[in-house]
């Protein structure tokens, strides 16, 4: 009695053999110890393969993917802060350099306030007060710059270059945040 080829035994174990041939193979396995041993070995292997030990990916993988797919909202707060900082800084250096001492803006605000309700007047007065304080700081800076420029002419250009570079840096950071896209991260 010739032994069964391995693929026949495997097909039988996989239930791939039709009923008549299936019973012939079953009979053969009962009679042939060699094929029976093979079939038992393959059956055991099938069982082991069917229960694989799955590998666990690192716990940080899914959160990292989520972060890439859904960038966090808090970046909006950073963007707002950067816009504000850039604006203040940009206006500051213009004021310091050009010495804008005109009060036309405050006068315009006051005129508007006179024609509106009291709470708005108070609000605008508050803004005016802050504006005046800021302006005083600007004037002080301007005076300092004036002294510096008269004593050391080259320093003015350096200060302006520094202010421009810093403003540019802030704007660059802001634009980078705004245009931020998911990118490759290495753990």
């Amino acid at each position, binding site marked *: 009695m010739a032994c069964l080829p391995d693929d026949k035994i495997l097909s039988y174990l996989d239930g791939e053999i039709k009923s008549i041939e299936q019973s012939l193979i079953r009979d053969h396995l009962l009679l042939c110890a060699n094929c029976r041993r093979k079939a038992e070995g393959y059956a055991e292997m099938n069982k082991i393969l069917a229960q694989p030990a799955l*590998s666990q990916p690192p716990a940080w993988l899914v959160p990292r993917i989520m972060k890439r797919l859904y960038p966090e909202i808090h970046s909006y707060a950073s963007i707002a802060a950067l816009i504000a900082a850039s604006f203040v800084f940009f206006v500051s250096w213009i004021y310091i350099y050009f010495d804008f001492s005109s009060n036309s803006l405050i006068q315009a605000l006051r005129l508007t306030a006179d024609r509106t309700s009291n709470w708005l007047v108070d609000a605008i007065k508050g803004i005016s007060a802050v504006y005046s304080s800021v302006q005083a700081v600007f004037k002080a800076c301007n005076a300092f710059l004036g002294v510096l420029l008269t004593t050391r002419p080259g320093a003015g250009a350096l200060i302006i270059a520094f202010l421009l570079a810093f403003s540019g840096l802030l704007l660059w950071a802001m634009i980078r945040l705004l245009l931020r896209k998911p990118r490759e991260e290495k753990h």
Partner: protein
Amino acid sequence: MILDEDQALIRKTLQGDKKAFEELMRKYEKRIFSFVIRMVRNEEVAIDLTQDFFIKVFNVLDKYNFEYKFSTWAYRICYNLVIDHIRKSQALVSSLDDDSVSSREMLSSENVVSHDGFKNLSREETSAYIWKLVENIAPKYRELILLRYIQELKYEEIAEITALPVGTIKNRIFKAKEILKREMEKDGLPA
């Protein structure tokens, strides 16, 4: 149209529910990672490829056809990603097939084989040994064993993913088992 669990999660994801996609990832991360790591045999690369896979799935999720099973569609993406990587990196090192050497040396160096042979191995140890052998058979066999047993796919689904005829898949899986059995016998494990 009645949606299965995966499809319901996809629908929610497409509607902007980020928790739904996270749930989908949690469901598949182990099987995908297990498949990838056994194909590329490098943990760092497997992590990167698993991440690339989920990002790719997310980016093409709107192209998913709800008439088909999500798992088959996703595994096809995963399979192509891994095969592309292997082709590019040519990371196919020595594999066990008819002409190759036994994996015994490699396995014994990793303390899988005990000094007493395999007769005293527990079921867990035997399983670890067999899966180690699977990682070292030729990729054309390994990928099919992994798709069949890690991803628990039917022959027809594997055919859809690999674009191979069902007959070829069955033959290769049988062949892979014969190779595994031969290796086990060489190492004294009754197979």
